[in-house]
């Protein structure tokens, strides 16, 4: 069993597997909904291509065709045939296909989906709450882990502005609207990492509000969830210990939670297992110790307007101790 841990390597593997550019592509579906939409998309695309070519050919004939061809084209029949009969026939077909896909989705979402994950759009990151092995809430952030082959129901919320949750490889997008709960069923069909992004303009750092989706085999997922539900690991080295002390002395717990310590605030992302995530700052940075250090001191340049103040008071030594501690929270 490969332990899904360190971001960089796994990401590299994922990129290699999906041809480098497909992690956020709707054209490489690996979820049930995306897979049902895909053929509808391609059908409509090909219909569109044929229609466009047809128009081009007819225009070409109308412009340059022989006289009798042109004379035949120049009548009311073309308008009625091409403008009414033809579209009605083609569009009826497409429409029925579209309704079938919609109805399939509706049925799936009514029947399937155990194990709920609640995702809340924040400014500008994602709070992800799983229900743990014993039904307890397991708070995480900026990453969605899915068991392959099992439908999971996502509850999408927002307590600020409107966001839209979109993981193109798995499914279409659905908005997160204050005052409403939107539900969507996600089912990954094969293991792997893909990427998603906020699709509804939400002000400020909208462009930097992304996340990773990690689909894992069921057993692996269960093990991961078990681990994720545990409290944070204690520091193991003196540097990590120093990092932890700095973390508390500088008030990081005012906004962040590290379960198992007195840091219990949920204003910012939960950091209990931040070291094992694939990214920092809602996929703004890859996850490594240097990135932690950069983020702490310089987050307003990396992700302008984000709600975390910059902590520029640390020396290099202090920064690397802090980074070492955070990185150790796997």
């Amino acid at each position, binding site marked *: 069993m490969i332990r899904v841990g360190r971001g960089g390597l796994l990401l590299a593997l994922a990129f290699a597997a999906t041809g480098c550019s497909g992690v956020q592509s709707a054209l490489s579906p690996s979820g049930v909904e995306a897979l049902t939409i895909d053929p509808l998309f391609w059908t409509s695309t090909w219909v569109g291509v044929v229609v466009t070519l047809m128009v081009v050919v007819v225009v070409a004939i109308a412009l340059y065709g022989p006289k009798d061809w042109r004379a035949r084209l120049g009548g009311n029949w073309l308008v009625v045939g091409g403008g009414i009969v033809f579209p009605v026939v083609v569009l009826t077909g497409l429409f029925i296909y579209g309704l079938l896909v919609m109805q399939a989705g509706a049925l799936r979402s009514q029947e399937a989906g155990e194990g709920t994950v609640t995702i809340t759009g924040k400014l500008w990151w994602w709070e992800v709450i799983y229900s743990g092995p014993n039904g307890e809430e397991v708070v995480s952030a900026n990453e969605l882990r899915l068991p392959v082959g099992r439908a999971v129901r996502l509850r999408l919320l927002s307590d600020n502005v409107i966001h839209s949750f979109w993981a193109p490889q798995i499914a279409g997008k659905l908005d997160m609207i204050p005052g409403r709960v939107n539900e969507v069923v996600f089912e990954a069909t094969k293991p792997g990492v893909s990427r998603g992004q906020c699709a509804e303009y939400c002000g400020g750092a909208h462009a930097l509000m992304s996340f990773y989706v990690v689909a894992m085999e069921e057993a692996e997922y269960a093990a991961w969830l078990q681990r994720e539900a545990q409290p944070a690991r204690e520091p193991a080295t003196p540097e990590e210990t120093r990092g932890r002390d700095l973390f508390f002395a500088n*008030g990081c717990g005012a906004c962040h939670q590290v379960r198992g310590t007195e840091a219990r605030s949920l204003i910012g992302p939960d950091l209990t297992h931040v070291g094992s995530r694939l990214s920092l700052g809602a996929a703004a940075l890859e996850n490594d110790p240097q990135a932690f250090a950069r983020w702490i001191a310089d987050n307003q340049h990396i992700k302008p307007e984000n709600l975390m103040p910059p902590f520029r008071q640390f020396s290099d030594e202090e920064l690397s101790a802090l980074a070492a501690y955070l990185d150790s929270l796997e």
Partner: protein
Amino acid sequence: MSWGGVPGWRSIASGAAIVLLGAGLLGGAFILSGLYNVAASSNHFDITNFIIRLTLARSVETRSMGIEPPPDLSDERLARLGARHFALGCAPCHASPSTSQNPIAAKMYPAPPPLSHAAEEWDAEELFWIVKHGLKFTGMPAWPALERDEEVWALVAFLERLPEMEGRDYAEFSGTGGERSASALTFAPDRALEETVEMCGSCHGDARNPPVHPLAPPLAGQKEAYLRRALSEYAAGRRPSGIMEPMAAALGPSQIEAVAQHYARASLSPPGTSVDADADAAARGQAIAMNGLGEDGIPACRSCHAAETSGQFPRLDGLPAEYIATQLSLFQSGVRAGSAYSAIMAPIARRLSKEQIEDVAAYFAARSPGDGTGDTAGSEASQ
């Protein structure tokens, strides 16, 4: 009746242009010749004086329109705070009820007027404007920190009381009582710690006396690193204050070190006079200070402002509510922005509403300075 007609606008215009050009040329020649005497020893013509005074009076009156005095202008404590600055910053040139004008300053032209009757001559808002902005070509400087209106008002509050003041009252008011003269009230690099601290205490209070005004917070028991940083920031002009900047600038690095150590170790001063805080406000403030307000993105104050956290985060327990509220609004408006720490505090302060600021300030003010140990955020959530 033929006078050749009325001159057309063209000829009027060209005539005017010629006159203007001629005047300009003559004026230029006069300036370049160096004939004008700029000596401070020679007086203006009466007419020049008249024009200058009229211009000054009109300018002050017009420019001070729309300025609103604060409601606590008649607060005696405010006047006392102003009096202390007056003794140091103004009296050397303007004289005071107990000191005479410095003979050098007396030879300035125009000579700095005594201010005993300034409040009769000018309105409060006009005084405010003059103190804040200074006057061109007179040697009257602008306030060192233009962002700190509340400090300027302190001085105005004092000037408002000055006309009725005798020498003795003044000495008591400005803390220059006894045999000390105003010139003794300056720091010098070689001054002993006790004297320096006495200076600080004259506003910030000491073991016996409370601070003269809430804007000058009690310092005893404050964290050493924070005090050191605060003084260095004042000295370097990174934390704007017309009162503190000149004070801190006069201190050398070793004095700053010593003063910070002194206060960090000092036994706690008696609480300020204004602890009649609204209990409801303090309770609301406590909720914010202990647990923060997640939905507004406001973290718990005590996560940082507690005894065991970094020495750079000031202790807030027992600080006057006015002081805390003023500092928070300075963070909000971007005045306190000169350090890495203000970069942390400013965005958080901006998320606080006016009411929330008052609540939090009431909460901290109501606590006694010794409460701060052992409770960081969340630990007394049930309190």
